[in-house]
């Protein structure tokens, strides 16, 4: 970088042609995302559903009610559990993938992408068949003698996390594979040649270098699972209440748009806060190995 460019800052580096190219997207973003978001915020500061009296009554109602706080907590908790499960299952799968022959990689990639090719509604209803009282899983549990009677899996948080783990898995694996495929195998060989065990190589070399992919995967899975209205309502049923259900009920069933807007903004803000936290955490674990000597 030359001194002149550095002095001009980032604006100096952007030639006019570059920002002009970004203009259509910027305008579309402003018109179709920022403006509606502003509208949403405006709707939330009305007291009544006919939008005639401005006020913060709906915010007060939402934030003053412990029930809604627990809904926010459950929604974020669901996201974190799904992220943990997809990462735990997805990372070993990615390790298998990068070691596989090109032929197997093609087959694996097809299997990984397959869930994205079927509609989320179909995937979700398929999970009802798997998790139900007379579903595949329960028949196996009873046949193996693990439990005398079918266990309740549908409409439990565990069942929902299990289903979301499969449904959201491509979102974890695709960015993870993108990064891990570019890792230089020589680094792993060097680590082992220098005497590190395979576990040590995994935790000190492969994992930190894969961190950017892992973090992007976590972000996508988190944002997608916390807002997965169809899966949450069909598999979770109405026993489990999450923010998307509250938004749907308030906007479409009882027409209380201000409260729906409050819930929608709360979802946006709380999910964004977690996304920022996850990426900050990712930068820390991803940044550590660079220039830091490994201590014995």
């Amino acid at each position, binding site marked *: 970088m030359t001194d002149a460019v550095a002095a001009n800052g980032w604006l100096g580096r952007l030639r006019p042609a570059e920002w002009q190219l970004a203009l259509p997207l910027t305008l579309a973003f402003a018109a179709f995302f920022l403006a509606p978001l502003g509208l949403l915020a405006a709707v939330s500061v009305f007291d009544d559903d006919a939008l005639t009296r401005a006020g913060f009554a709906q915010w007060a109602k939402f934030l003053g009610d412990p*029930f809604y706080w627990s809904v926010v907590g459950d929604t974020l908790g669901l996201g974190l559990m799904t992220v943990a499960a997809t990462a735990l299952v997805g990372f070993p799968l990615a390790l298998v993938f990068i070691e596989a022959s090109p032929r197997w990689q093609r087959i694996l990639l097809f299997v990984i992408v397959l869930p994205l090719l079927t509609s989320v509604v179909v995937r979700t*209803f398929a999970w*009802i*068949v798997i998790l*139900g*009282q*007379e*579903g595949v899983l329960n028949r196996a549990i009873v046949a193996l003698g693990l439990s005398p009677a079918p266990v309740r899996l*549908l*409409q439990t948080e565990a069942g929902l996390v299990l289903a979301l783990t499969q449904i959201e898995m491509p979102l974890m694996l695709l960015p993870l594979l993108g990064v891990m495929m570019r890792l230089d195998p020589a680094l792993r060989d060097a680590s082992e040649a220098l005497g590190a065990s395979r576990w040590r190589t995994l935790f000190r070399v492969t994992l930190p270098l894969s961190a950017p992919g892992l973090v992007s995967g976590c972000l996508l899975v988190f944002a997608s699972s916390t807002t997965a209205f169809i899966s949450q*309502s*069909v598999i979770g*049923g*109405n*026993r*489990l*209440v999450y923010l998307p*259900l*509250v938004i749907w*009920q*308030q*906007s*479409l*069933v*009882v*027409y*209380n748009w201000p409260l729906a807007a409050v819930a929608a903004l709360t979802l946006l803000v709380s999910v964004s806060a977690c996304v920022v936290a996850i990426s900050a955490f990712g930068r820390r674990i991803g940044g550590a190995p660079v220039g830091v000597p490994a201590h014995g």
Partner: protein
Amino acid sequence: MSLRINRRGFLAGTAALGAAGLAGRPAFAKGSVTAAIYPGSWEEAFRGIVAPALAKSDGVTLEMQPLYAVDQIAKARAARGQPTFDVFVLDPGPRVSGIDVGVFEKFDPKKLKNLSAIPGGLADEWGVTIAAQVVGIAYNPKKLPAPTSWEDLLKDPWVSRLGLTGFQTTFGTVSIIEIAKRFGGSETNVDPFFTEMRKVLSKVATIGAPQAMAGLFQQGQCDVLYTNTQTVSTLKGRGVDIEFVKPASGAVAFFTTMHVAKGAAEPENAYKYIDTVISRDVQAALIKPPWNFVPVNKEVTLGPALPMKSLDEMAGFVRHDWSKINPLRASWIERFNKEVAK
């Protein structure tokens, strides 16, 4: 080998195609109508039966927008006088909301040729009834003895196999009101339902999203639930073990109505469409499996799958006043979330 077409042959061919096209499409000359329709079986039934009938009788093309009742009102409200469809199809709750928020054009029943074929009182200044729904209890006869009343749902052996849904849907709301009434509640007081439900809540098999209930029943996730006769007939047609029971206090009936949207682009065609829907032949076709509608046209012969022998029996069914229910529904939904969920 090459296909050779000379200019004269080409012109003659195109002219013939054009003539055939014109002859086959007289409907476009009379325009179209856009109707909101419930997604799923209603949409399929209307595509298969109503659309061809309307094209034949009036030459009008039917376009459909699949939307649930509540979505239709929300969409019409958001459109502010520029609706994307001409005709609503609604349950009683959303119908009252629609009147309140003013998204309907005033309705003139006299414009319907088939008005005399439907029982009195089913058409008014806002719209006309085109089908009925009868709600009661459905159960799996292979797994459970027949329940006889609403209160049975909260007793063993039924409660531990019960599939519960909340106030989001019309059938859910009316069923919960009926349960509440058996324990001293009323149309405007569902407290007894919550009190009684709390005692047995841990036993309840399933608390589901309404759209998932049929699937949950089929999967054996629950063996007794409240639902309408149409769902029962449809599941039965698929070979599911399911029977409908009229509770001792009476089954609940409510009407599905059609309304012309305020600012509709094709108001005249909207009347023609509604007239077609209530015509004898269309209603007779709609009551057959797999559609299983409950008709409103008196000239239609009722089948054995329906819970009544004549439409006059409908007068004896339990009815509700949605202008009283609507204002309370938001608080009931919130209470259901807080007390029954989790």
